[in-house]
């Protein structure tokens, strides 16, 4: 049955059919029967990366296969979401090695996007924590790959947006914790310079990120709240918390039931930020112990917050610039600021070093913010893309819904190598998405005309 399918940004919506599977033979016959197939998890990538004529929903392929509580390893089918994993591992004293800002993504999605978290500068991205994984390829064979086994294939699968095949099983390592709490520190920064200085000063903290105000100009340009944290130790908890150190206090969830006009979300975030910045937070620095949920997943508390952007949807724009391109960050932020089309808040984070083939992170600054879809937006984002490229940066494919293909080919240094490996295992273009077609990673004609793009 054909239906309109869209991911988290509600843009674009594409006519797809979606089929799920619970057993290997069902997956195999689906892949065998169809072309233009892409695996789709919980639909939390923002754009068109998991949209194709035939989407394979992995959500019912969600079984836990092994949990080594002694040494901290977890093996599961790829359709399980991180929130389910946290419910299993946290009570046993373990945590995810890497988590993005939502726990409602699947493990397969975490691999295909090679997700990063607030601890990138210390722990890298998800691909650095995989022991091995199984991937069903276009010819119907399953390849077990790891950093030491089928390595080309492995590195083209990490961050490879599902183009090498369907990730079925993943084994990864976990992080030992004593409590379900985070010892958090919030620091106010007057402007961009100060927050960048603070990132450096607090880089020994495992977790760090900043909320940055995109509207302020002049002296307060880039005023921010830097939030850093560590997993709390048992002795740091209050007596009440220490009674059940690995359990979270129970609370309900808010759901936005329908699409709201887009100003609602901005008003909400402005208020929340100001409350933090000016409210009880008159001191420059606050220290407290908080449950891990609000620390890692502040927006998950409002299910379907994306509907706050209205029916037209939004795109999330996330780029990274190398460390020596701080000026570029200022330039781009100024352009966003002048235009006034973006969300009021952006997330700023400093990445550490990363070795990878096609993953998004590299050592430098990454900024993410939302733009409600409107007339003229894509033209403006094209201008930003040029600035990102000029400053040797690139865009996050998991958030992308509209980048022009030449930006991708020029900004990802290993794009050709990646496309070659994809072609080697997926030469008939069985696995392809609206995104991979748009970016010409799986081009309709012959191979990508490489000369034109290098």
């Amino acid at each position: 049955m054909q239906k309109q399918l869209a991911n988290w940004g509600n843009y674009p919506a594409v006519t797809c059919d979606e089929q799920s599977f619970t057993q290997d033979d069902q997956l195999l016959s689906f892949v065998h029967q169809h072309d233009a197939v892409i695996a789709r998890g919980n639909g939390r990538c923002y754009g068109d990366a998991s949209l194709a004529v035939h989407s394979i929903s992995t959500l019912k392929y969600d079984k836990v296969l092994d949990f080594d509580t002694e040494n901290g390893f977890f093996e599961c089918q790829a359709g399980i979401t991180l929130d389910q994993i946290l419910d299993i591992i946290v009570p046993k004293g373990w945590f995810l090695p890497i988590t993005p800002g939502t726990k409602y993504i699947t493990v397969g999605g975490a691999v295909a996007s090679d997700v990063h978290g607030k601890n990138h500068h210390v722990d890298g991205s998800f691909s650095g924590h995989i022991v091995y994984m199984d991937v069903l390829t276009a010819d119907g064979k399953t390849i077990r790959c790891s950093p030491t086994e089928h390595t080309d294939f492995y590195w083209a699968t990490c961050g490879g947006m599902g183009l090498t095949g369907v990730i079925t099983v993943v084994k990864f390592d976990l992080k030992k914790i004593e409590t379900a709490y985070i010892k958090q520190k919030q620091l106010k920064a007057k402007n961009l310079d100060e927050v960048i200085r603070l990132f450096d000063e607090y880089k020994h903290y495992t977790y760090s990120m900043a909320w940055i105000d995109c509207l302020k100009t002049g002296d307060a340009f880039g005023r921010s709240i830097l939030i850093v944290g560590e997993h709390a130790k048992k002795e740091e908890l209050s007596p009440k918390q220490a009674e059940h150190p690995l359990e979270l206090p129970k609370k309900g969830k808010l759901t936005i039931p329908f699409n709201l006009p887009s100003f609602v979300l901005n008003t909400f975030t402005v208020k929340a930020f100001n409350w933090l910045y000016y409210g009880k937070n008159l001191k420059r620095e606050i220290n407290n112990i908080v449950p891990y949920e609000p620390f890692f997943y502040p927006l998950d508390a409002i299910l379907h917050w994306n509907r706050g952007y209205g029916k037209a949807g939004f795109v999330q724009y996330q780029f990274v610039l190398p460390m020596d391109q701080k000026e570029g960050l200022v330039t781009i932020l100024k352009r966003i600021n002048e235009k006034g089309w973006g969300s009021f808040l952006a997330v700023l984070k400093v990445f550490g070093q990363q070795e990878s083939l096609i993953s998004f992170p590299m050592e430098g600054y990454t900024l993410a913010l939302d733009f409600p879809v409107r007339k003229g937006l894509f033209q403006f984002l094209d201008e930003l893309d040029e600035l990102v490229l000029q400053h040797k940066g690139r865009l996050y494919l998991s958030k992308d819904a509209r980048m022009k293909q030449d930006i991708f080919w020029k900004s990802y240094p290993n794009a050709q190598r990646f496309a070659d490996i994809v072609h080697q295992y997926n030469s008939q273009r069985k696995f392809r998405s609206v995104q991979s077609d748009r970016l010409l990673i799986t081009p309709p004609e012959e191979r990508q005309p490489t000369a034109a793009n290098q």
Partner: protein
Amino acid sequence: MRQQHYTRMSTVLILGAGSDIAVAIARKYAQEKYNIQLAARKTEPLVPLQQDLQIRYGITASVFAFDALDTASHEAFYAALPEKPAITICVFGYLGVQEKAQSNWAEASRIIATNYTGAVSILNIVANDYAARKAGTIVGISSVAGERGRQSNYIYGSAKAGFTAYLQGLRNRGFHSGVQVLSVQPGFVYTRMTENLPLPPLLTAQPEQVANAIFKAVKAGKNVIYVKWFWRYIMLLIKNVPEGIFKKLKM
């Protein structure tokens, strides 16, 4: 004395454990700390679910080969269960293809043998054991299709009608021997089998809703449940259309 016996039997047997509804039921009961026995024709595909239940919920899950069509094997299957379940949930069924079944006896008889004969065969054995123990709960998943025969699925519907009547009679018998029998009429359910059908959201349940409804109904000692309450009234309407009119309808 009887109570003591009952609490020791904290195992649920799921017959036809491969379906989405079965997975949801298994997870619900495992979450409530029941041990789970998974039974299906092929056991190998059940192993990931077995692992999943044990790791997530810290209970014991086991896997058994069970073929509803092979009625001769049912006695031995039940006898071989190392622990007799406190609750037996009969989830298996076979929808088949109506048009094929009209002219192809193999298809028709498979529909009847799975939904009626096979279910009766295994539940007779379970019921006799429960009656002897004077304890136990049998849950049968039947279908609203069994409440009135229609041209689009009357072979499946008539098999389910037979199963529904069987459960009614079993409930009557069980009442006098301390055995609970619950009939479940799920209506439409979002599963792998139905995900490409345009189902009306108001009338369609998630597998988890079916599982929760069963768990609650067993606890409350209910007799018959419709997972979505709408269905009770829809079926009441449908059952009351005079046959003279009903036969002219296309449904």
